[in-house]
């Protein structure tokens, strides 16, 4: 028994038929063919499937597609605009904050929400993403809204948190 739901993904409304048990991540990946959202652990531990539902980050492998009915969703494919890449995408690239990039979409979408919070709250916020051994300080430097500072010899000053 399939249910008809409407999802607004990256600004475009889609009406799709899903089984009640279909996970949101599978609806996004397999029905809408937006494979930028990844399934890392399937147990809501790793955060690779993180998306924004109404601007709030959520691990889409723990949300049923029917729960997101009528909601507005942002995935990694919706970060860039016609004007160019999102500042976070640019920042991840410039700061070498990714290796294989599998966890990166989730990292960036979580960071989008994180950076909208006021500073003190942001500092205490747990990462919520498990990653490959990418230099964490690079991700954190970027996610804490730091611009990379340079020492006098031109090399970046790396602060380990």
């Amino acid at each position, binding site marked *: 028994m399939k249910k008809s739901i409407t999802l607004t993904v990256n600004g475009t409304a889609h009406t799709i038929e899903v089984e009640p048990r279909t996970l949101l991540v599978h609806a996004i*990946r397999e029905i809408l063919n*937006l*494979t*930028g*959202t*990844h*399934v890392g652990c399937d147990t809501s531990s790793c955060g690779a499937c993180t998306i924004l539902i109404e601007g709030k980050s959520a691990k889409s492998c723990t949300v049923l597609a029917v729960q997101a009915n009528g909601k507005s969703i942002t*995935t*990694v*494919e919706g*970060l*860039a605009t016609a004007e160019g*890449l999102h500042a976070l*995408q640019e920042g*991840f*690239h*410039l700061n*070498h904050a*990714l290796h*294989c*990039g*599998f966890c*990166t*979409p989730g990292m*960036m979408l979580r960071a989008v929400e994180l950076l909208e919070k006021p500073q003190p709250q942001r500092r205490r916020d747990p990462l919520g993403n498990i990653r490959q051994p990418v230099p964490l300080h690079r991700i954190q430097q970027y996610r804490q809204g730091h611009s990379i500072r340079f020492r006098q010899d031109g090399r970046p000053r790396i602060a380990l948190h």
Partner: protein
Amino acid sequence: MIECKTSKEIGGMGHSKKRKEDARFIQGKGHYVDDVKLPGMVYMDIVRSPYAYAKIKRSTPPKPWPSLASWPW
């Protein structure tokens, strides 16, 4: 000590390298194994024996398997 650093225009030695592959990864355009879709593609499950040392006399596929491509025995 000799400083091995090429000029900024040339890049290379002494400069951090910008990765070419980042562009697709940060836009969700990477192509990972789970993203591959081919005609007639099937998923495989490996069913392991719960016994460390035993003879397999027969095995039967689980009933509610709707479209089983193949089963070894």
